C-alpha cells in the first residue's frame, strides 16, 4: 500500500503539485530545489534530518488554508514550522510531505494596552512582543532561552516555558485565543480577547499540541505589567542538595520567586571557562533567585529569602546591587548550554521534570548513571518547578559514544518518571521522545489522546509521526495498528 502510494509520487506528480502551490502562493514562496531544502531538513535537534518534497512560505491564513486543502485532496502530509529552534524534532519534515513555514507571517496585528492583549501572526519572534509593549510598561512573560529567535507559533505548539514560569506560568497561561487552519483546511477561531471562555477548552488542547491539531495563524497574547521592582540573589553552596532544600524552603515560606535556577559544579566551571560570570569554581552548586513585584513586597521578601538561604547552608550570598550586576549573575546561567561546547565536543540536552522534593535523590541517581556509562553529566535547571536540563557530554569522534549519550539521556528520563515527574517540561515530545511517552501513559491513556487528535485530524495528515509512540488510526477510535497489517487509505498519513 505504502509502495503503491509512493509510486504515485512521480516526477509528473511533483511538477503538478508544484504548479498548484505556485498558483496559490507565487513562485517565490515555493521551495523545491534540493540545495534550498537543506535548510529545512531539521529543527534545533539536528541529529534527525529529513528532506521534504516542498517547503512553502504562505503569507496569510487563506494561503495556509488553500495549501492544507490541497494536501487533503492529494493526501500529502504537512508539517508546520516556525523558526526551527525546537529541541524535540517536532518540525522534522516528512519525506513525502510539505513543510509549511510560517516565517513570513510575522506581523504584530494589534497592540491593545487597555485590554492587555497583543494580537500577532505566528512568525513573530517571542522577544518582539515584549519590545512592542515595553515602552508602555508591559511585557510578554514566557521567556524560553531562545526568545530572541523562536517564534510565537512555535511557542504555542510546544507550550514553551522559560526561567520565569514558576510565578507566571507557561505559554498556555498567556494565550487567550488562536485563529487556526484546521487539518481539513477550514479556518476557525478559539478564544480571543476575553480572559475566560465557555464550553470545552479547545484552546488548552491546541497549546502544546506540537503542531498535530492544525496550523495556528493568529494568536491573542496576554501581556502583563512589568514588575515595579526586580531583585536578584546569588547564593553558592557546598552541596547541591542544600541548594535544592533552599528552593523548597523559600516557596514554603510564602514567597514565589519569579525564577529560581540551579547550576552544579561542572556547569559552573564550564561557564567560568567561557564567560567568566564570577561564580566560585569550588562551589558544589549555585542558586539564582529572582524576586519581582510591588516594591514593598519585594523589599519584604529579600531579607526573608536571605535568612532561608543562610539556614540552608549558603556559603556566599550576594544581592545584585544594580542592573549590571544582575545581568552578570544571569550571564553565566544563560551561557550554560553554549559553554558546554568549550568543555566537550558534543553534548545532549535533556528536558525532564521531577517533584522538587526528590531533587537530591534524582541528582544522585543521574550522577550514578553518568558513572555507569562513563560520561559526564552537567546539571542546569529551573529549580522552582523541578524542570531539569541535564547535559550529557560526549565525544562524537569516539565510536559509539553518541549512542551511549543518547541511551543515558533516555535513562535519565526513566529516573524522572520513576520519581513522579515527566519526560518533558518545555521541549515537547516531538519525534525524539515519542518512544518515551509510554513511560508516563498506558495504552488507554495514549488512545485517549488519540481521540482528541482524531477529532481534529481524522486523516492523520497534520504533522504525522510525532508524539504518539506507535501509529494510530481514527477508523476505530483509539485503535492501534499492529504488525504488517495493510493500512487503510485513512492511515496513509502516518506512513509517508
Amino acid at each position, binding site marked *: 500500500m505504502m509502495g503503491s502510494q509512493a509510486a504515485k509520487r512521480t516526477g509528473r506528480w511533483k511538477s503538478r503539485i508544484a504548479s498548484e502551490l505556485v498558483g496559490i502562493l507565487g513562485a517565490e514562496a515555493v521551495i523545491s530545489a534540493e540545495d534550498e531544502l537543506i535548510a529545512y531538513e531539521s529543527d534545533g535537534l539536528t541529529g534527525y534530518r529529513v528532506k521534504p518534497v516542498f517547503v512553502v512560505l504562505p503569507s496569510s491564513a487563506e494561503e495556509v488554508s488553500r495549501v492544507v486543502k490541497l494536501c487533503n485532496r492529494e493526501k500529502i502530509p504537512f508539517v508546520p514550522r516556525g523558526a526551527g529552534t525546537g529541541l524535540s524534532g517536532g518540525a522534522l519534515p516528512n519525506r513525502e510531505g510539505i513543510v509549511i513555514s510560517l516565517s513570513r507571517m510575522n506581523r504584530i496585528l494589534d497592540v491593545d494596552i*487597555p485590554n492587555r492583549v497583543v494580537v500577532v501572526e505566528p512568525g513573530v519572534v517571542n522577544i518582539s512582543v515584549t519590545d512592542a509593549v515595553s515602552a508602555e510598561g508591559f511585557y510578554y512573560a514566557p521567556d524560553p532561552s531562545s526568545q530572541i529567535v523562536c517564534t510565537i507559533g512555535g511557542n504555542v505548539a510546544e*507550550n514553551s*516555558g522559560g526561567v520565569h514560569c514558576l510565578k507566571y506560568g507557561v505559554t*498556555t*497561561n498567556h494565550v487567550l485565543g488562536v485563529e487556526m487552519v*484546521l487539518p481539513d483546511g477550514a479556518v476557525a477561531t*478559539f478564544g480571543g480577547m*476575553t*480572559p*475566560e*471562555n*465557555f*464550553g*470545552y*477548552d*479547545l484552546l*488548552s*488542547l491546541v*497549546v*502544546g499540541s506540537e503542531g498535530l491539531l492544525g496550523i495556528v495563524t493568529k494568536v491573542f497574547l496576554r501581556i502583563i*505589567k512589568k514588575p*515595579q521592582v526586580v531583585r536578584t540573589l546569588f547564593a553558592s553552596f557546598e552541596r547541591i542538595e542544600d541548594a535544592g532544600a533552599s528552593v523548597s524552603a523559600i*516557596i*514554603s515560606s*510564602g514567597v514565589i520567586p519569579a525564577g529560581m535556577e540551579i547550576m552544579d559544579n561542572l556547569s559552573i566551571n564550564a561557564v567560568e571557562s567561557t564567560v567568566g560570570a564570577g561564580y566560585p569554581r569550588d562551589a558544589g552548586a549555585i542558586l539564582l533567585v529572582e524576586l519581582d513585584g*510591588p*516594591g*514593598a*513586597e519585594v*523589599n*519584604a*521578601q529579600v531579607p526573608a529569602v536571605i535568612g532561608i538561604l543562610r539556614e540552608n547552608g549558603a556559603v556566599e550570598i550576594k544581592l545584585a546591587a544594580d542592573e549590571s550586576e544582575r545581568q552578570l549573575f544571569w550571564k553565566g546561567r544563560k551561557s550554560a548550554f553554549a559553554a558546554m561546547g568549550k568543555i566537550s565536543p558534543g553534548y545532549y540536552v535533556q528536558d525532564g*521534570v521531577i*517533584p522538587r522534593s526528590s531533587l537530591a535523590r534524582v541528582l544522585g541517581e543521574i550522577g550514578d548513571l553518568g558513572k555507569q556509562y562513563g560520561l559526564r553529566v552537567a546539571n542546569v535547571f529551573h529549580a522552582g*518547578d*523541578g*524542570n531539569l536540563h541535564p547535559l550529557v557530554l560526549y565525544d562524537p569522534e569516539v565510536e559509539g559514544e553518541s549512542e551511549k549519550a543518547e541511551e543515558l539521556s533516555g535513562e535519565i528520563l526513566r529516573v524522572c518518571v520513576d520519581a*513522579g*515527574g*515527566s519526560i*518533558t*517540561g*518545555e*521541549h*515537547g*515530545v516531538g519525534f525524539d*521522545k515519542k518512544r518515551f*511517552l509510554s513511560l*508516563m*501513559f498506558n495504552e488507554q*491513556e495514549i488512545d*485517549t*489522546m488519540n*481521540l*482528541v*487528535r*482524531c*477529532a*481534529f485530524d481524522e486523516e492523520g495528515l497534520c504533522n504525522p509521526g510525532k508524539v504518539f509512540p506507535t501509529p494510530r488510526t481514527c477508523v476505530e*477510535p483509539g485503535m492501534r495498528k499492529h504488525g504488517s497489517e495493510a493500512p487503510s487509505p485513512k492511515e496513509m498519513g502516518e506512513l509517508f
Partner: protein
Amino acid sequence: MSYVTELSKMVSSFHVPGSGDAGPSVPEFGFSPQIVLYPETVEEISQILSFASRSGIRIFPFAGGTKLFLGNPVDEVGAALSLRRLCRVLFHEPSDMVSTVQCGMEVREFQKAIECENQIFPVDPPLLNTGATVGGLVSSNLCGPMSTRYGTCRELILGVKAVRADGEIINVGGKVVKNVAGYDIPKLMVGSLGTLCVLAEATFRLYPRQHFSRTLVLGFDNHVSCSQAARAILAADIVPTCFEILDENLSSEFGTTTQGAKRTILLRFDSFEEAVVEQIKEVRETTLGETSAFVEMTDEISRDLWAAAREFPFLPGVSFSSKLTLPVTASVEALSDIESSPALSGVDALCLSRPARGVTLVSVSGEDEQAVSAACFLENLADSLGGRIMFSGIRRELREKVRAWGDFGDALSLMKNIKQRFDPRDILPGEKIFDADRG
C-alpha cells in the same frame, strides 16, 4: 436481569428511589434515575460505565449536587452516580505544594486538610459552604473573587484520574507543576460538566498562605469616577487577590459600608504586612479625588462581604443568573451598559464585574416577559462587546426562550466531534452542553 439489579451488584452501596428504603438524601435532579449508585473505588466506576456503555444505559455523575442549575436540563437517565464516597486526600507533598484529592471531597474539607501545612488551595467557588465538591469545581470551572490573582481551576489543575464513558480508567496530566507530555486532557475536563468522563481524582498546584490580609471598600458617587478608578487600579503596581465592582443594588444587598454609593469597588490584598500597607497606600493615591468612601477592613470583618461576593450571582428564586466573559475594559463598563438599558428597566437586576478576569455577573428577577427581554439584551451585549454569555438557574417557565449557552462560535463543531469520540453513545448526558435542536 434488569439493569438496575445488574448495576446494584457493582457497588457496595446504592439506593433505589421509590423502593420504600430511606436512602441518603439526593439533590433535586429534575429527572428520575432508577437507581443512585455510590461507588467507593475508581474500579467500581469503571465497571458501571463499562456495563452502561455496552447496554446503552445513560449515567448522570454528580458529587455535591450543588450546581445542577448549570447547563441545559438533562433528559431521563438510567442511573445517577454519586462520587460522595470518594472523598479523601490521597497525596499531599508539602514541599512540592501539590496534592491529589478524590473528586467527591468537599472543597472546604480539602482546603482544611492542607491548611495545616500553611498552604492554600486558592479557590473560592460559589456554594463553598453548602457542599461544593472538588469534582463539581473542576466540571463547572466556577470560581470566585480569588480568581483575580490565582486564575480559575484551569490554572491550578495538573492531572486527573478519570473514567471514560466506555469504562476505561485514564490517568492523564501529572503531579508536577510543569509538564508538556501529551495533550492537556486535564484542562479539557475543566468546564466540561461531566459530559466527557467521570472524574475520580484531581491533582492541583497549591500556594503558600500569605501572612497578612486587608480589604478595601471604595465608594463612588457615579460610574464615571468608578471606571476611572478601576482603570487606575488595573494599571497600578499592585497585586490584588480580589478586585470586584458592584452596582448600587448589589452593594446594598451585600450591606457594604458604602450604601448609597452608585458604585462600590472591593479589593483584597494578601502578602507581607508592609507590602499590604504599601499597596493600600498606592490605591489611596491612585483613586484620590474619585472616591466618596474609602474603608479599610481586617480579614475577619470582611469575611461576610467576601462570602456574599463568592456566592453571587447564584441566588435562589431569581429568573436567571448570567455570566458574561468580556474583554477587560468592557467588563469595567458593562455595569453602566446594563444599568442604562431600557430592556432591564422592568426587572430587578444585580451586577458585579471582576475586571481582571473580564467577567461580569448578573442576576435578574422579574416577570417572565421582562426577564426574557433582559436575557436577550444581555446576550446581544456580550456579543457586541466581543464576549460570550452563559445563563444558569433559569426558571422553568423561561427555558424555552432562554438557553443556557450563548454562541460557541467556531468551537461548536469540534466540541461535538470530541464528545462523539469520547462518548459515541452519549452515556454521559451531552445535552448539558449541546442543545438538541441546534444540530
